[in-house]
């Protein structure tokens, strides 16, 4: 059997324990799919695989037990998934009958977001899809996830780029009855950014996380939602060498800035990646090039707006395994 493993890996298949047998990874941008797609996935698993699917940590599906020889037929069977979950959201796929065009940049995952969750500051599915449109197909090894609020249910802190929803709370003192529900709750579950002064509430913007808990707790709508903002946490990772949580890079920035920084990161990788290695993960490129270089290149052409703040120095930490 002659199989170009490099090629099939880029096509979202992998080399498995069993010779001649592969598994296919299916992307689900934003983790939300029309149930009609499940029929297609079921059919692939039953016709070509072993009749099971594995649900991946990135909110995709992996179909195991596919004979490598069947890859061309599987790719044809995958066409409706590419059409329904990629083309449909504006991702350009040149040829729907050849399977996934790249697998390096992983599925953009998302928490359930504001279509359901009361805490969410925005529609995470929509943003995940916008990001997918921006960065896929791409061979660079990058992990991105978006989460609706600082509860971070999707684990944005384990990603190269994690987007966390924020909202600017707006206060109308005339509506405040001084019940202190917002103050006590902010201290208990969030940042302690609020305190009472002359029977009314003061917010310390430096401490505020933009979680929106104060808005949720206020019985009179003295706190309401202002503009939507985002916090970007970057270069978190698992893996052997130096696992670590992502840390905050920018906060109180707009969606536009999130998208621009994300796009710029690909330019940074392009420029600094060590091409002598089979693959280099973006976090290690940033370690090598240094945060100031990354910072400068990532922020090129980015409007930070009046509230936007970017870190100059990030004490990443984590631990070294060597």
């Amino acid at each position, binding site marked *: 059997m002659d199989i170009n493993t490099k090629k099939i890996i880029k096509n979202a298949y992998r080399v498995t324990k069993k010779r001649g047998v592969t598994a296919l990874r299916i992307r689900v941008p934003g983790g939300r799919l029309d149930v009609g797609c499940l029929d297609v996935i079921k059919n692939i698993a039953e016709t070509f695989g072993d009749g099971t699917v594995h649900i991946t940590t990135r909110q995709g599906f992996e179909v195991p037990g596919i004979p490598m020889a069947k890859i061309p037929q599987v790719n044809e069977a995958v066409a409706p998934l590419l059409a329904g979950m990629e083309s449909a959201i504006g991702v350009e796929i040149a040829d729907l009958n050849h399977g996934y065009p790249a697998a390096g940049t992983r599925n953009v995952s998302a928490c359930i977001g504001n279509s359901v969750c009361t805490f*969410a*500051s*925005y529609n995470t599915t929509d943003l995940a899809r916008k990001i997918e449109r921006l960065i896929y197909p791409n061979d660079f090894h990058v992990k991105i996830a978006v989460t609706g609020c600082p509860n971070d249910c999707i684990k944005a802190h384990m990603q190269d780029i994690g987007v966390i929803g924020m909202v600017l709370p707006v206060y109308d*003192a005339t509506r405040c009855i001084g019940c202190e529900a917002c103050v006590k709750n902010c201290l208990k579950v969030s940042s302690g950014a609020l305190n009472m002064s002359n029977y009314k509430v003061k917010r310390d913007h430096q401490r505020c996380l933009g979680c929106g808990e104060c808005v949720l707790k206020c019985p009179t709508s003295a706190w309401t939602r202002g503009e939507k903002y985002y916090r970007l946490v970057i270069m978190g990772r698992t893996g052997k060498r130096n696992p670590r949580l992502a840390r905050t890079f920018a906060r109180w920035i707009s969606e536009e800035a999130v998208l621009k920084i994300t796009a710029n990161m690909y330019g940074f990788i392009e420029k600094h990646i060590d091409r002598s290695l089979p693959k280099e993960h973006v976090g290690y490129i940033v370690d090598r090039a240094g945060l100031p270089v990354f910072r400068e290149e990532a922020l090129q052409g980015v409007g930070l707006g009046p509230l936007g703040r970017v870190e100059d120095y990030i004490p990443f930490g984590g631990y070294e395994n060597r």
Partner: protein
Amino acid sequence: MGYVLDGQSFDGLLSQLSKEYLIYAPVRISGKGAYSDTDLVAYGQISSLDEIEYNEKSRFSPKELIYPITQTLFYFTEDEYKEPAVSQKSIIIFCRPCDVHAFRRLDEIFLKNGDFRDSYYEAIRRKTVFFILECAGSFENCFCVSMGTNRVEGYAALLRPGEGQVTCDVDEHFAPLFARYGKPAGMTPRFIEENSISVILPEEIDKNIFDHQMWQEYSSRCTACGRCTVSCPTCSCFTMQDIFYEDNPRCGERRRVWASCMVDGFTELAGGHGFRKDNGSRMRFKVMHKIYDFRKRFGYDMCVGCGRCDDVCPEYISFSGCVNKVSSLAGEVKKDD
């Protein structure tokens, strides 16, 4: 007298009225709901028919227009004080039948409670005119029919918004103005005669019900968030705050601010009804006040059945459900006697 006005004429009417009146109605405030990408329906000033949110119940009642959440009573320096100026204009409030009945309750509390007349309330109330928005249907949680607040008589105007037009029934005072902007039309007011929720009110309440275990359930369910009382059109408790300005503590102002018997720290303020630490006791106090204590004093019930308390409770506690529980217990307790 009945008139029909198209949207443009109605806006002309509003513009004419606005020379003399501040005009308020329920409006949809985009993105101001507590959850992201949701709206808030609350009272705001309007200048056109389109701004009136007719199809959804407002989260907050119009009581805040006459009895503001925060109201400065006077400003003080070391040796004198001064009351803030009130707007010279009169006020028109577009509201539902139950809301008008709620103002009757507030009048009772602020204007007819023994010898006490609240001049701050009265100053605004005197100048207020209600334009009734006819209910096209009962909203979720409404039980106005049970409370007898579904009908109104003696209104200044009653409006039935429809496709691009409003049909109105108007009193003598406003008739000439409406005649100027609209065409005569037949208009017989329609009131809601049935709600999907109905409430049975207990006639007498045995003191055993106060100690009944039914209240314990609410101790574990209610989070004392205060939403039900803030949204209630008939809750009237307040607290006084003396503010000393930070940069000049010898000057300041006295404010009165809404208080809630359902919220921590407000128990002492609700009028000497004792210390109610657990939330079940608070619930009991609130329910009994709305459907029993007020009646003993004024001869009818405080609650107007608007259902806002149920609409806004994050714990899905039903006030009307609770009243019905009390009533069935009252029946049982009576049988036991």
